[in-house]
């Protein structure tokens, strides 16, 4: 008799645990007042640096908005979920937050993970504002995916033009990191080079987390190209630059945000001087709003943000701007409104720079050609929006 009672108790307890643990989602329906905003992003694993920046940018924006009373009077309730830099887990987490019927979801940053998640968000008709830069993301026809930075298909052509017009290069060496980010950039770059009749004389794959670049620099040196395109993550970029300077490479080293960022300068020191490239949005952009943001970020989190911090920050202000325009919390309306919308800093200072989203969710805004001089990123030229 006692045992049966006990068993019933255990049964109830176990089912309660199971149900509660798996997020029965009953509470989501009554979340009347605060605005639930989930952020599914890389907080551990190889993507932790980018993901942490993205998250902290979001936290900063959410704190600012909440301090001023929230969006249309609703305070934002942020939930951060770790994908562990794994596409499968990211999908699971996205499914989990979608079960709570969110208004908009944020993240992730890894393109691979975005490509997995976006099927879910488009099915659920919930806008996903993310940090991935792979070209493929916006070519899949989802009506609910939005970028916070240039896709590789917009940034790489800008760079390619610079190789042809600015450097007048005939041959080029490519050093890329063999992950989805690096491979995507490299594939786009090879395509753009072919279109401009520039020969790729060395095509060198490196590993993420690689420490010793001497073999790669030796190969680049041996290739005798007119210019070198370096497309690796920040830390590897720094290591590559140090080795390149050591072995006395004089050929122009050209890259993207991941070669010219503050993080690279901090790590590579003098070796970064002379590096040039295209930056979509950087903490060093000669725009007061961006520099103001960088200062706030440093004060709040005690480290210098990279472009992912800015992406996260902007993502939240995109929600604010669109919602204030539509006047209600309607996911479908959000997506249709943001397509073709331009947000100007005059209307919404948090957007930092004027930006436009097209029908695919691609972002368009001004960008910069920069060079590192005296351990500082110096903007050489402002490249206007593509469709102005």
């Amino acid at each position, binding site marked *: 008799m006692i*045992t049966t009672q006990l*068993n019933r108790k255990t*049964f109830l307890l*176990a*089912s309660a*645990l*199971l*149900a509660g*643990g*798996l*997020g*029965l*989602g009953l509470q989501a329906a009554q979340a009347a007042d605060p605005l639930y905003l989930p952020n599914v992003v890389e*907080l*551990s694993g190889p993507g932790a640096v980018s993901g942490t920046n993205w998250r902290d940018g979001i936290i900063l924006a959410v704190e600012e908005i909440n301090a001023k009373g929230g969006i249309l009077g609703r305070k934002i309730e942020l939930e*951060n*979920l*770790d994908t562990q*830099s*794994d*596409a*499968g887990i990211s*999908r*699971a987490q996205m*499914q*989990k937050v*979608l*079960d709570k019927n969110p208004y908009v979801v944020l993240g992730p940053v890894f393109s*691979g993970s975005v*490509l*997995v998640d976006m*099927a879910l968000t488009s099915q659920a008709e919930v806008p996903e504002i993310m940090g991935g830069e792979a070209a*493929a993301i916006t070519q899949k026809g989802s009506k609910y995916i939005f970028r916070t930075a240039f896709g590789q298909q917009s940034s790489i052509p800008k760079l390619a033009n610079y190789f042809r017009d600015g450097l007048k290069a005939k041959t080029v060496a490519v050093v890329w990191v*063999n*992950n*989805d980010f690096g*491979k*995507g950039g490299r594939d786009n770059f090879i395509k753009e080079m072919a279109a401009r009749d520039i020969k790729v004389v060395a095509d060198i794959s490196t590993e993420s987390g690689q420490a010793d670049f001497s073999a790669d620099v030796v190969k680049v040196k041996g290739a005798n190209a007119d210019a070198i395109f370096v497309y690796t993550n920040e830390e590897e970029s720094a290591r590559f630059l140090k080795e390149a300077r050591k072995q006395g490479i004089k050929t122009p080293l050209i890259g993207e945000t991941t070669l010219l960022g503050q993080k690279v300068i901090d790590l590579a020191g003098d070796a970064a001087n002379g590096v040039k490239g295209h930056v979509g949005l950087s903490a060093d952009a000669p725009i007061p709003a961006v520099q103001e943001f960088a200062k706030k970020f440093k004060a709040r989190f005690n480290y210098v943000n990279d472009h992912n911090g800015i992406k996260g920050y902007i993502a939240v202000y995109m929600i604010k701007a669109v919602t204030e325009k539509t006047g209600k919390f309607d996911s479908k309306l959000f997506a249709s409104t943001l397509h073709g919308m331009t947000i100007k800093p005059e209307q919404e200072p948090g957007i930092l720079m004027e930006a436009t989203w097209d029908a695919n969710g691609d972002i368009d805004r001004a960008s910069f050609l920069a060079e590192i001089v005296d351990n500082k990123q110096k903007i050489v030229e402002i490249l206007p929006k593509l469709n102005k």
Partner: protein
Amino acid sequence: MIDFLTSRGFKIFFALFIAALLITAPFYLRNFGLYLIAMWLVISVAALGLNLTLGYAGQVSMAQGAFVGIGAYVTGLMTLAGVPWPVAFLCSGLLCFVIGWVLGYPALRVQHHYLAFVTLAFSTLVFLLMRNEEWLTKGIYGLTDVPRPILFGWNTGKAFDFYFFVLGVVTLLSLGVWWIIRSPWGRAFVALRENPVRALSLGVDTRRYTLMAFAMGSAIGGFAGALYAPLVQFFEPNSFALPLSLNLLLMVIVGGGGTFFGPFIGAATAVLLPEWLRIAQGYYLIIYAIVVMVLMLFCPTGIMGLGDRFISHFRQKRISAERAEKAKDMSQQEGK
């Protein structure tokens, strides 16, 4: 109470209880919950396979993740090319069986840590092949939109249907593994683990059983991969890199190597528990690592071993209590 917990009746009751929970899950869980349980089931199968190789036959393998990967890629590529899922499923298992058999050969020459490193190297090589051989595997971009099977007109595309599909296949696979463990093979595997020299002298062809332990364990890993592919519908080589193999190893040992239910429990600690402990947020891995270290310290036979120990502790206590009781009775009688 303890008697009841160890009785056959309770075991059956408990099994029915779990079965009932699993069968009724879709009626009280949302998509995410179903996805998570399906993931747990699939990972459990992979761990079941490793348990056969490691837990029963005692052959250290750090390559189980690679076999899940091979299985997932075979099924992914074949079903994307229009091959029916059951065929792809069998091919996944078969290919992993063959590769596992070959991987078993080093185990005939070297043991323990050497074997661990050979399999670890193998697992990394498989990752590199998956990443670099773009013509075959689509490289780092991975496979997208892997279709969910349609079996005899039953479309398993929706989370609800797919969950039952996974539950069914996993049940069949588990029964298969159960059968192997209970067959003379299971006995031979244990003999191989506990004392290969003695086993050899009793006519056990340790060579063939070693290779079989690898091949069988790997094939089951391949089957898990064949379920993983339509479950996640997208994967890339990184999903199957070394961390997965190490995780599976942790799961088997933490759950309890060499026990049938160990892998299920181990997989639960790695797949379900992190969800329940979301409060711990980023610190989950730290807590998990500490728990594993403490568990290994006090009970290297894993959670199943802990349960056994708990039960035998109470039984012992009761027996000594009874003895004391008897002794008391006797002395009282003597006193009379």
